[in-house]
């Protein structure tokens, strides 16, 4: 009890705040963008979940939603956007193209955005229904609450390495 209790309760509270105020960066490339617009529209209303307003700068966002096909040409750009986001950050792969490449198996389509960046939640569908998107958002929120996002885990590992004096400062 004591410090661990306070920090774990604090971590819970902070994660609760994070999950209900996600600032999304919709990285829209293709057809899934239409369903993303529909999810943000009044009928399915992503605003109910706190993830309403898209922040169109990666530096102000913490949820990168990869909406649509990622081609090989787009790979470096996706990586750059991901690296510009501050931690903790989460990634949703919206649609089968962003998850695995979809039904495109050719010289230009990357077989999934996770070839380049770590993805927390994958949404299948071509395009997925808005209800699937909201389901995925709730799934992500549960992961955030438990601290299981890739970025959150990486931060914990880094914090422990720092405590143990093992963290090297990059030149």
């Amino acid at each position, binding site marked *: 009890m004591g410090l661990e209790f306070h920090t774990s309760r604090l971590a819970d509270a902070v994660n609760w705040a994070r999950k209900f105020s996600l600032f999304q960066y919709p990285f829209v490339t293709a057809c899934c963008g239409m369903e993303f617009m529909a999810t943000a529209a009044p009928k399915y209303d992503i605003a109910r979940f706190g993830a309403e307003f*898209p922040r169109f700068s990666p530096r102000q966002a913490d949820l990168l939603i990869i909406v649509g096909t990622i081609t090989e040409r787009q790979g470096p750009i996706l990586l750059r956007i991901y690296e510009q986001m501050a931690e903790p950050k989460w990634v949703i792969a919206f649609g089968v193209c962003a998850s695995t490449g979809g039904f495109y198996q050719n010289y230009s389509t990357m077989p999934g955005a996770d070839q380049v960046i770590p993805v927390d939640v994958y949404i299948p569908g071509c395009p997925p229904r808005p209800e699937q998107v909201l389901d995925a958002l709730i799934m992500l929120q549960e992961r955030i609450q438990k601290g299981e996002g890739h970025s959150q885990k990486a931060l914990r590992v880094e914090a422990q390495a720092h405590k143990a004096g093992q963290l090297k400062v990059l030149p």
Partner: protein
Amino acid sequence: MESSSKPLRRVVLGQPVPADLDDEPLPTEPMTINMGPSHPATHGTVRIVLLVDGEFVQDADVQVGFLHRCFEKESEHATYTQVFPYTDRLNYVSPMLNNVGYALAVEKLLGIDQQIPERAQYIRVIVGEMSRITDHLTCNGASAMELGAFTPFLYLMKAREWLYELLEEVSGARLTHSYVRIGGVAADLTAGFADKLRAILLKLREAVRDADALLTKNKIFRLRMDDVGTIDGKTAIAWGWTGPCLRSTGVAYDVRKDHPYLTYDRFDFEVPVGSRGDNFDRYAVRMEEIQQSAKILEQALDQIPAGPILLDDPQIVLPPKREVYNTIEGMINHFKLIIDGIRVPPGEIYSYTEGGNGELGFYIVSDGTGRPYKCRVRPPCFTIVQTLPVLIKGRQIADIVPTFGMLNMIGGECDR
């Protein structure tokens, strides 16, 4: 501080500052700045490398291809029916129009385009016009949102939802329908479709009227759209423009009127034509086209006959499942059509229809097997986006946003 002996000069906002305003002018040089490929105001991914002098664009290099998903190469490895899902994802805001265009091209090669059942033709027109309405709703809504008008965007999205629900009822998918087949359509209209569509058209007209009222008389919207991105008809034709963008310049070229296909010659509708060729005319042409499409839909619902929805030809159309599961002939027929594809006699065709953005052409070369040898899409927005540097040269960076929005570049179609 001593008072200046020079009289005060007035500087007009939006115009370049006169060079003699200061005794020592500030040194300036043009700057290369990148807009995109991930940018809120670019529909889909496009990269515009701008050479700017302050706020004014001196030159622009538009780079597309960030969504190249190899439609042609995939089509060469797929049977003719397997190409339909790829066509959905071309102009993904009006997927039915792509389906219909491709089906007509293959049917012409097969020589059966005059034998498609009438009911199927009417259904194709109906779902096609519904898709055209969703295209224009999305274009105008998203462009308005980029100028800051969030409410009309929500009104038009609300209207688009009604159409999506009805299209989902008929085809099974909200967006990527793959509903049309070679020889007809995949399934018949559901019961009560006509009444539902009529009810939707009433609500749609109201929603569009509300959104339009917020925009057309809005001073800010007009200032940003009037006389911005102007082009004249002759230049537009030389650059390969078609569709609402060309019609906004005054050239009344619409494939549905000039070279009617399906049953478009039986409907009474007008082709809205602009006069100035600026952004506002493109917006107004699209809004009016929504009304005209609604008119076509009402007439189609009145005229549609009962009858079969697929051609009765075992070489082309799958047999009904009852026969496939119960007779050997049905099963073999089904097997051959799925595995080998529909055998199209060798030849080539260029077939064109009016897509959401203009003349959507399909150039198909067939070699006698069940897979196309070449299946090329003539993308209407490819040549239109090519002209963007001409439209924005000399204008401000902020003018790029409405201009690009009104050109309606759809990544899936432009990059294929």
